[in-house]
């Protein structure tokens, strides 16, 4: 059951707390938010002002994370809804994999998709430019991917618990 709050500010406070605890599993970088109120345009939450942050570990991984969110009220109360995201993991200065969802704006690709950093030519297209379809992806899955599959070193012992908690909205 998604978390609901009594006020818009409380809903954003809950959301940002969950995201910051999750990110603390892999980075000590700061997180920036743009607002705590209901708005026609989405707010943004970004790790390290939108710059990629270096993750600890032998692999030279980086993480990009920006979410766009709206605060809205329903019968249960106020909640934060993710309405777009950019999550990317880089390796040795290049983007390894990127998960995008930008349903607004003028891009013809409005569904969640991913890009892979592969120098493979498919006919007259590069695979890296192809929008590979995905379902909606959440940041907890990206942090888990970085640690479990790609060798990022967790910064805290309770990272599995925090990832599990972040998965519960």
């Amino acid at each position, binding site marked *: 059951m998604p978390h609901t709050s009594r006020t818009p500010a409380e809903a954003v406070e809950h959301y*940002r*707390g969950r995201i*910051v*605890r999750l*990110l*603390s599993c892999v*980075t*000590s*970088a*700061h*997180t*920036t*938010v*743009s*607002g*705590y109120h209901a708005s026609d*345009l*989405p*707010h*943004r939450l*970004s790790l390290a*002002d*939108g*710059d*990629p942050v270096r993750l600890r570990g032998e692999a030279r991984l980086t993480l*990009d994370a*920006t979410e*766009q969110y709206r605060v809205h009220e329903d019968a249960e109360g106020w909640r934060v809804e993710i309405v*777009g*995201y*950019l999550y*990317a993991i880089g390796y040795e200065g290049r*983007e390894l994999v*990127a998960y*995008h969802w*930008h*349903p*607004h*704006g*003028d*891009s013809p*690709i*409005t569904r969640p998709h991913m*890009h892979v950093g592969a120098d493979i030519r498919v006919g007259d297209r590069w695979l890296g*430019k192809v*929008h590979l379809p995905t379902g909606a992806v959440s940041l907890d899955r990206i942090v888990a991917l970085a640690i479990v599959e790609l060798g990022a070193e967790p910064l805290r012992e*309770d990272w599995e618990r*925090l990832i599990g908690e972040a998965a519960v909205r």
Partner: protein
Amino acid sequence: MATRTDNEIRELSPEEWDQLVDEKARKYLGMSGAEFERRLNAGEIDIDDSPDVTRVAMLLPLHAPHK
């Protein structure tokens, strides 16, 4: 149970956020934030054109499609 972290959270005003976008547009794309936003909204720049474009574009409050 809440878990404390040392990760800092910064809240930026709309003006500060505009400055952030401008800084990142100049750093990654070599243009002002205003020019980038105009060209993105005009369809002159594809949000998926490069990792740097997507990175800066996602800092903007993406609007409803013009179409």
